[in-house]
């Protein structure tokens, strides 16, 4: 039994990808990282993570499209998805939730916020 939850992190900005991976890795999660939307979708199908943290603006499928495709995939339809984005208009948030995201976190965020949102999405109490 793997008691370390697997989290898929996708962002085209390598610094932010490492930041998110580091913060969540520190929480004891196992991390699988993707540099664009297509890679994220492949990894989600191959690795079956317990949570996806996706950037919205990414090349080759953006975060919204990946979320929609995940929702359309019978085996991944219930995968919790947190969208990260630098687009912060209320309409952007609405779009994200309509695409099927579980939560929506505007950039920039504090590590504490990310930890809390991730824990909530995994249905854990704050570790």
């Amino acid at each position, binding site marked *: 039994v793997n008691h370390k939850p697997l989290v898929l992190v996708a962002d085209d900005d390598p610094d932010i990808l490492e*930041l998110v991976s*580091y913060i969540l890795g520190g929480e004891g999660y196992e991390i699988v990282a993707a540099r664009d939307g297509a890679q994220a979708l492949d990894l989600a199908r191959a690795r079956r993570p317990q949570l996806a943290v996706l950037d919205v603006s990414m090349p080759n499928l953006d975060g919204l499209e990946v979320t929609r495709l995940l929702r359309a995939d019978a085996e991944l339809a219930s995968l919790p998805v947190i969208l990260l984005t630098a687009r912060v208009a209320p*309409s952007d948030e609405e779009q994200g939730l309509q695409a099927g995201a579980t939560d929506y976190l505007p950039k*920039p*965020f*504090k590590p504490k916020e990310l930890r809390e949102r991730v824990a909530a999405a995994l249905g854990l109490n704050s570790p």
Partner: protein
Amino acid sequence: VPLKKLLERDAALLLAAGTIAVGVYFALPSGLWQAWWYVGIGVASTAALVAAGLGRWLPFETGWIFFALGLAFFVAGDAVGSIYQSTGGEIPFPSVADLFYLLGYPILAAGALVLALGRGQARDARAWLDAVAVTAGVATVIWGPLFETYSGQGSLFDKLVLFAYPVGDLVLLAALARLVVASVWNVPVLLLVAGVVLQLVGDTIYGANEATYQLGDWVDVTWLASYVVLAAAFVDRRIVDLVGKRRERRLTWWRFGLLAASGLAALGVVVFDAATHRTTSTAQVVFDSFLVLAILSRFGDLFRSLERSRAAQHAAFVEMEQVNRLKDELITVVSHDLRTPLTSIIGYLDLLRAGDAGDLNQRQLQFLDIVERNSEKLLRLVNDLLFIARVEEKRVALDLREVDVAELASHAVEAARASAQQNGIELHASVGGPARAVADRERIEDLLDNLVSNAVKFTPGGGRVDVRVARGRDGVELDVADTGIGIPRDDQQHLFERFFRSSNSGNVQGAGLGLAIVKAIVDAHGGRIAVESAEGRGTTFHVVLPAAERTEAAA
């Protein structure tokens, strides 16, 4: 309008003295006394004009020399008449008096032209056309008295001399019209126009009643008043304001009205003659028809130029809209692209401070605090930019709930307390009970934050900032008053424009977005904002937000 603005003291004195002198003229018994008093009024007026011109160094461009000379010629004509009368002789016709009078007209006309065409004025052929049309319009009305009466018997030379009078009048009128169609108006110009018109009215009435005219006739009022008023135009030193002022080249309503009046006058004369069963001369009918046609074609011009300027305005408007949209798009993109690096900066900074990269000493922590404070500032600026751009696109969505503005105001004051204390400013909140408004909590927090921190920023040490919240008749009333540097009067109207910074804001930091955001928030809530400020004394912002429940008290 206060009298002082209407007339300068010297000009008013001259007009008053002139009025008395003209009154005395009519009280005098007819004869030599009256004849020489008439000349005296002319001499005194001319002397006043020359004294004003020389004494105040009036520039040549006012045309004062010509007006003085023209008046002098008229007065010389008057004097010749009086000399004949003094020596007991009849005035012959034509006499040297006629020579003086006839020379007076073109000289006065030259004065009006010098003033109209002064230095720095562009050539304006249309203004000439319009002046001629206006002259013709006046001529057609006074056609009868002007030409028909003068064309009496006598030798050809006599007729020529008689005919020269109305021609002189028209030349003077044309020059005046050239000044008037494109003039910048002020009191001296009005006096000039009045003076010349009085002269023309006198000549016209005289023309119609030449046979019965005697010295002391009431027509003399017009000529005498003309002398005094023309002199007063130059005694009022504001005549100088016209020198070098750009004249109106467009078809203004004023010019349009003058032209329309001329055209109507030409038509009116023909209609009047027909209605009163008078025969209209063929020459006049032809003249009037041409005049009306000319004026109509000029109107065509006018409307075309109006159309052109409207099209240009529209094009400018479209371009401005485009530029505005581009700017807003740019702001949105930039704020997004700034947010990405800020995410890394703020995220890693937080990790560093939390000791994720090892323990830090005091110095390191202190420096990182500064970095953090400044990245927060940067983030705030990015957010403000984005908010303003959204306001421009009318994409501000409000999350409306009942909020207690009094409570939020207390919070804002507490948040600003530290920086106020640091700068030695007394910060005071007087909020009574709850003051509920239907509003977006976050936006109202922004609003309060902006107003309070602005007040603190622009108030020097030892000053005071007062925040008051109360339930008023129209809603929740919020006042933020400071004893700061104030806002110059000229800046107040631009205060709420984005990126505007008051000219006296000196080295107080800011991008000029705060008040634009405040205004946008107030507007989005259907509220009102006003500013009251005196430079060096302080500023008060009054905000009114719609109250939540009007019936609360009654319930």
